[in-house]
């Protein structure tokens, strides 16, 4: 249920603060880019650059590409241990590793519900959407998930 005990809509709260934008229907992961060498980081790196050829300590927060191509994929058939919060009963979900072309970086995430392993192929175009990870008494905790671009065109996608 996405309403609280008074029947009001529960607020949508990012499960991790500052990891992604969530103000419009085109969410982005928030990473950093080194001002010295230009390499990207996700999660954000803000203290020093990890490129051994770069001494920079200066970064800017950047929105990472919100589309990429499937590198690999799997699913979770068993309930993970805490701190994962599971609905009761547990509902299996699909997971994808998606390669961002500009950043040359592979990012993991759950795939929106309704997309199975059998629907995915390496190289398939995916886009970032926001969806509920879990709900507690007061809020819906939202996270990023991957969604096949083809699904978005059929408007099956998760609402912001």
């Amino acid at each position, binding site marked *: 249920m996405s309403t609280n005990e008074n029947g009001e809509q529960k607020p949508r709260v990012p499960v991790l603060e500052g990891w992604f934008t969530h103000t419009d229907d085109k969410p982005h992961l928030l990473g950093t880019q080194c001002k010295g060498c230009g390499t990207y980081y996700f999660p954000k790196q803000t203290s020093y650059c990890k490129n051994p050829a770069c001494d920079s300590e200066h970064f800017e927060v950047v929105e990472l590409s919100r589309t990429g191509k499937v590198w690999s994929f799997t699913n979770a058939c068993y309930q993970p241990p805490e701190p994962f919060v599971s609905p009761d009963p547990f509902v299996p979900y699909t997971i994808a590793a998606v390669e961002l072309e500009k950043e040359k970086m592979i990012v*993991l995430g759950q795939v929106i519900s309704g997309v199975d392993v059998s629907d995915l192929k390496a190289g398939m175009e995916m886009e970032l959407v926001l969806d509920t990870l879990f709900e507690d008494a007061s809020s819906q905790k939202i996270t990023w998930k991957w969604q096949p671009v083809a699904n978005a065109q059929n408007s099956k996608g998760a609402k912001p």
Partner: protein
Amino acid sequence: MSRDVVILGVGMHPWGKWGRNFVEYGVKAARDALKDAGVAWRDVGFVSGAATMRCGYPGYVAGATFAQALGWQGAEVNTSYAACASGSQALAAARAKIQSGACDVALVVGADTTPKGFLAPQKGERPDDPDWVRFRLGITNPTYFALYARRRMEMFGDTQDDFALVKVKNAKHGFVNPNARYKKCFTAEDVAASAMVADPLRLMDICATSDGGAAVVIASETYARKLGVRNAVKIAAISTVTPTYASAVIEMPDLATDSGAVVEAHSFRAALPIKAYEEAGLGPKDISVAEVYDLSTALELDWMEDLQLCERGQAAQLVRDGVTTVGGRLPINPSGGLACFGEAVPAQALAQVCELTWQLRGQSGERQVANAKVGITANQGLFGHGSSVILKR
């Protein structure tokens, strides 16, 4: 002066789910290794322990814990922790001590008692810890193994049947290994009938967690000669090299790879053996047997290619052809591997060394690899670091 370091003795406590204190397993393995070496405990100058994070304080100071349990005799101690590579790092510390001339003979021990189920992160609300974050988002250890396995299917056309063949092969090996936990000749049908955990990997494609212990006694070659031991198995190389930025493969527990946008991306698993081969002055063609970290069936295939034992994408064909079975040209995991042992984290890298030692000495009984001369191990810790050890006769 020879800087060669040799293996004088090896010992193990059988793997299982015994539920006893890890120290007991370590002591049993250590006493067996000392006996095998013909070295008195009081003559050991250095005790190098591989730590366990799951057994409280004694596990954090494993070197001292084992030294105390064996009976204080004044040896120096060291403790290493590197997740699954802990045993190799403990071995590397002991070898360095001997090579520096600071001691003649050292004992290396790792043992663990594991809880049931998924390995879980530490408690609390800790968004700074990537391990905590990935579990929060529902990314478990099998997720990573499954992503690698699926990548093989997508890139090379490997099938779930190929992965099952790896399990069947390792089960056959472990069936005749008295130290293995699972001693049953599983069939491809058994694998296919086991529950899906993380598609394409089923329960029987993924290793369990076990209790167990392993120990190795190493010495300078000069000391071995004094004992009258000749032709002892030599440690030809220990590689614990870290990856080079940028890491190309998504590694546990990370949620993203490094960015390859400004520097070339590398795979750590491929880098690890290069250093080992270089140090040993040997190449992949010299290898007669390998013990690799089969956290999953499919990962064994990745390791075969990373160790350059075959071309990228060819490993499944070798398994299909029976090349990697004992009796084949290049047996992989003659011990039965993690498939038959389950993972006892700080003991596992040492168990690989024990197995190769027995193989190179010709003491492996029914699972003996004919004329084994050079063996290589490979394993991995967290964040894409690991270890590779080469032993030669």
